[in-house]
C-alpha cells in the first residue's frame, strides 16, 4: 500500500534518474547476472558482458518502463498491458527473477544515491518495484 507521499517520492526519484537510465539499468542487470547466474539463461541471444551495447540498451529499456509506470502508479495495469503480454506469452521469465532484479535495482540505487537513499525512500521503492513485478506477472496464469 503506497501513501500519496511515497508515490511522489518514487516519481521524483525516477524522473531524476531518467537521464542516466542506461547506466542504472545496465548496472542493475550486471549485479543480477553476477549474483544470480541462472538469470543469464534468459539472455543467451544477447551479449551481456559489462559495457556491451546490448546490456546498456536493455538496461535503459527496463528503467524507462519503470520510470514510466512511476508517473501514475494507480494506472500500472494499463501502462504495463503490452509488457504483461510480452512477459507472459513470449519471455516467460520465472517470476523469482523479478525479485532478484528488484533487489539488485535497490542496491544500484543505494550505490548511486548514497545518503539520499534513506530507509523511507528504500521502503517506498521496494513497495513500488514489488507492485510493478506483480502487475507484470498478472497474465502468467
Amino acid at each position, binding site marked *: 500500500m503506497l501513501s500519496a507521499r511515497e508515490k511522489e517520492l518514487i516519481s521524483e526519484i525516477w524522473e531524476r534518474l531518467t537521464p542516466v537510465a542506461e547506466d542504472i539499468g545496465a548496472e542493475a542487470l550486471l549485479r543480477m547476472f*553476477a549474483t544470480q547466474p541462472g538469470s543469464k539463461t534468459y539472455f543467451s541471444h544477447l551479449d551481456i558482458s559489462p559495457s556491451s551495447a546490448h546490456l546498456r540498451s536493455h538496461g535503459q529499456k527496463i528503467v524507462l518502463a519503470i520510470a514510466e509506470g512511476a508517473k501514475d502508479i494507480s494506472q500500472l495495469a494499463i501502462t504495463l498491458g503490452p509488457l504483461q503480454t510480452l512477459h507472459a506469452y513470449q519471455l516467460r521469465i520465472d517470476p523469482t527473477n523479478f525479485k532478484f532484479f528488484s533487489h539488485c535495482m535497490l542496491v544500484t540505487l543505494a*550505490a*548511486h544515491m548514497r545518503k539520499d537513499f534513506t530507509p523511507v525512500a528504500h521502503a517506498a521503492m521496494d513497495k513500488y518495484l514489488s507492485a510493478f513485478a506483480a502487475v507484470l506477472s498478472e497474465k502468467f496464469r
Partner: protein
Amino acid sequence: MVKWTDEERKVISSIFSNLDYDDIGPKALRRCLVVYPWTQRHFSSFGDLTTAAAIMKNEKVAAHGTKVLHGLDRALKNMNNIKATYTELSILHSEKLHVDPDNFRLLADCLTITIAAKMGESFTAATQVIFQKFLCVVVSALGKQYH
C-alpha cells in the same frame, strides 16, 4: 564446509575493517524496521517505533544494531566453520527469541544496501557477490538449529 578464496577473504575483511560499527549497525537495523515493519514484532520493549522518524531516533534500536553487527565478527574470525560458530545463537533465536529465520535474510539485505550506500561505486557487482555469499552463509548458519 564453505570454501573461500583468498580474494573473497580479502574483500570481506576489508569491508569490515573499514566499518564504523556504531554507525552501520544502527543504520542497518533501522532500515530493516522501516522497510519491513513486521520485523518490529520482536522489539515491543524498545519504546516508540510508530513512525520512521521515531525509529531513526530510538536509542535502543541503535544499541541493538551495533550489537547485531558485532555478532558478524564471529563469522569473520571463524570463516572455516561458520556453521558451528553460530550453533548457540541459532538455538537462542529459535527457542528463546522465536524469530522467523526469514528475518535474518531481510536484515542481511538491509545490511547489503547500507554498505552499498556507504561505499557507492566501489561496491561493485563483484564485491556484492562476495558480500552476499558471506551473509548467505551466516544466515544459513543462524537457521540451522530450527527444528
